[in-house]
């Protein structure tokens, strides 16, 4: 009750406290809610768990374990906080072993394609995700590397290992050329321009006689698979070379994205560049460095492409091929290495393995891409974060929809409270108060007023027992200002040394009247709660 409440109103409530008692409302249906992250937990943690292994020259630990005691059994446990390295290792091991062992020739060839595209996507992800430059000329960079090295091999007799060495130089040179507009242009202007540059390359390659306009591609370059090798061993060799290329792509992604350059750029995301600049981060230089490094990487993949296929074809520059690559990284999710690889896996699987379907498989891929971009914020690997955001939204909606919580802890809050006993006590208290509220009536209050010092009814005793058991903090007490003449109601502070505070201006002449006043106050509080 507010302390400035007028006396009449107080008297009124004393005389007639609310007699109508609301029927217990049906409880709102609650859905099972929880925040359980199922982590594999290992038994025991001794001194060994404090000695972490590190990657050489870094502070990174291969596997990050947390030690804790199980709250239920109190047993010592170790939990692997981030299982992704293990998953990566298992997936890569399966990839390294399965296709050559179990796949037929076309499957091994498709796996090699997958590895090459995965490498391209990983390096492209550095441009789009890390550097934030939405370049659509990634495949064109690969094409420039492939055409350049193939031309050197055809016209200057370069062997395959020299092509691998020269490929990054072509990529770097092309990267420098297409970076010049990136210095000035922003966002979509640059994306559109790179589409145009890819188209320009395609038209040039189609029309240029030295680059094999007549043969639909420049072929006859040296290959790293020796001609003396038979078909199957040659394919397997190509597969493992592609595997090494993909590992190289992963390493490059990890080194650039996870180390200093990547961190600098993560501090300067889109729309927050000014802040990063104020911190002294030269984000433009960092972006361009990442772009050039990844262009060199793409050129190197182009060199690999030329040695694998003995040349290059104009399909590298077509928009369709580019769209296929874009579908891969969009489906997986822009900004993560696993997204790049898994998206590539899905699209290559649909594209190469279901090749009998004809154009339908590409329609299917485009449909998946469209569905991903319409419904998912960050591709497949953004689903957990998006789900958590959705659940949080639903949770707060439900919390907002519940107008009266009746003093109970809501399930949404309960998962944040470690001491579950407190929740039980609170719930019991809420139900007890609801029960007692039903007992309060005008007759009961009247009985309390008239029965001071006499035997009381069972109902009144119940109510009084609850009132007496209240915590000391804010408990009402009677202060005798002048004994047998003036009594007032105070509330205890509950803290030693802090005096009780006066609750209101009411003055009672007798202790009995004061006791009844305290009772009315408590009834009032009970009805209000």
């Amino acid at each position, binding site marked *: 009750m507010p302390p400035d409440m007028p006396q009449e109103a107080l008297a009124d409530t004393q005389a007639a406290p609310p007699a109508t008692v609301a029927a217990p409302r049906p409880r709102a249906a609650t859905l099972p809610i929880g925040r359980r992250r199922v982590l594999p937990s290992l038994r025991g943690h001794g001194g060994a768990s404090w000695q972490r292994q590190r990657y050489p020259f870094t502070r990174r630990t291969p596997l990050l374990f947390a030690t804790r005691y199980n709250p239920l059994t109190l047993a010592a446990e170790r939990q692997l906080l981030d299982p992704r390295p293990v998953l990566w290792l298992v997936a890569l091991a399966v990839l390294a072993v399965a296709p050559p062992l179990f796949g037929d020739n076309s499957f091994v060839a498709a796996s090699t394609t997958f590895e090459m595209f995965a490498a391209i996507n990983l390096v492209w992800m550095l441009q789009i995700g890390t550097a934030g430059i*939405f370049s659509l000329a990634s495949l064109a960079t690969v094409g420039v590397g492939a055409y350049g090295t193939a031309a050197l091999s055809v016209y200057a007799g370069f062997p395959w290992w020299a092509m691998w060495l020269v490929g990054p130089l072509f990529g770097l040179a092309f990267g420098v050329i297409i970076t*010049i*507009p990136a210095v*000035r*242009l*922003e*966002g*979509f*202007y640059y*994306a*559109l*321009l790179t*589409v*145009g*540059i890819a*188209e*320009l390359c395609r*038209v*040039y390659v189609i*029309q240029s006689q030295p680059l094999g306009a007549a043969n639909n591609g420049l072929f006859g370059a040296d290959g790293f698979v020796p001609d003396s090798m038979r078909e199957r061993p040659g394919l397997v060799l190509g597969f493992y070379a592609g595997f090494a290329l993909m590992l190289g792509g992963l390493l490059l992604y990890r080194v650039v994205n996870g180390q200093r350059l990547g961190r600098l750029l993560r501090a300067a995301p889109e729309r927050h560049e000014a802040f990063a600049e104020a911190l002294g981060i030269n984000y433009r230089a960092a972006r361009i460095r990442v772009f050039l490094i990844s262009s060199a990487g793409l050129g190197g993949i182009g060199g690999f492409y030329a040695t694998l296929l003995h040349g290059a074809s104009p399909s590298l520059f077509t*928009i*369709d091929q580019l*769209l*296929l690559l*874009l*579908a891969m990284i*969009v489906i997986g999710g822009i900004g993560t290495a696993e997204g790049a690889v898994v998206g590539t896996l899905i699209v290559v699987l649909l594209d190469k393995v279901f090749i009998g379907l*004809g*154009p*339908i498989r*590409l*329609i299917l*891929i*485009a*449909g998946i*891409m*469209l569905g991903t*971009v*319409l419904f998912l*914020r960050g591709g497949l690997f953004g689903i957990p974060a998006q789900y958590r955001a959705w659940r949080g939204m639903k949770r707060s909606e439900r919390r907002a929809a519940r107008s009266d919580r009746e003093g109970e802890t809501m399930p949404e809050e309960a998962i944040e409270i470690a001491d579950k006993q407190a929740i039980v006590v609170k719930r019991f208290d809420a139900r007890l108060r609801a029960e007692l509220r039903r007992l309060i009536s005008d007759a009961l209050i009247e009985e309390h007023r008239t029965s001071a010092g006499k035997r009381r009814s069972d109902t009144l005793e119940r109510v009084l027992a609850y009132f007496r058991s209240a915590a000391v903090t804010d408990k009402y007490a009677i202060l005798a200002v002048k004994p047998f003449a003036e009594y007032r109601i105070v509330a205890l502070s509950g803290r030693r040394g802090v005096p009780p505070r006066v609750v209101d201006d009411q003055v009672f002449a007798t202790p009995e009247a004061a006791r009844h006043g305290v009772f009315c106050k408590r009834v009032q509080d009970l009805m209000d709660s």
Partner: protein
Amino acid sequence: MDPYYLALTTVTLASIYGLLALGISIIWSSLGMINMAQGFTFAVSGYGAWLVAQSLSSNGFAVVAGGLVTGALAGALIGAIAFIPLYDKPNFPLRSLIATLAISMLGAQTLLWLFGPRVKALPKIFGYGSFHIGTVVASHEKVGSIVCSVILLLVTLAWMKRSRRGLEIRAMMQNPEGAALVGVGLRSTAMAVMAVTGAMAGLAAVLLSQNYFVSPYAGTTPLVKGMVVALAGGLGSISGALIAALLVGLIEAVTAVTLGGQYVLITQFLFIIAVLLIRPRGIAGMIEHTRE
């Protein structure tokens, strides 16, 4: 070099580029979306016109109407798929760009699946005749496409200037949130924009198919050219798009006459990159921050 020939070629190219670039430019400035599916609209309107010519009548007006209607429907479809569900979602510009790219891939493959890889030819709607302008022979086809596209451009511009809907579109270009606050329906206006620009692409498809063929991938080159013209003109600026269309058309004509056809794209790109390096927002582009 014959100035009359040059002028005629320039105007022909400029009118078609203008139709394509204007569509992309208007969509970007009013919806904030890069419509990479404009090439799909182009291709599908070619097929629509071809179907009309095959099954209904090969009358010129019917074929043009077929292209216009198919283009408007395709544009509205793109708007319904890529704009309506996404425009209030986070990261809208990038997601709509990817969505329109996905639509263009989906559309090209569907067309390939339905109609097969063989190209189709549209009937010559302007006839085969020709007449002289100065020293140059102007075929009906060229003059017809100039007249048609200029008429459509003028009608669109007048509609944008005079009509209620055009006022809403211009309000949305200037400040989408403000427009929504004063009662402009973003969704309905967006659908109108998509339908009108789709119809423009449809007309461009019918006109260009007088010289080229209708095929599932026919939209790629016009898309790229329209896009770079819009880029050079400045995304969001109508006058800029028209100036850029004229300049790019002129460069294409001059290059084709002096250097040869295979250098056209290279000189165009050099020109556009030069323009963008000097003026990163294009010839008359709005500054992006203004739109936000």
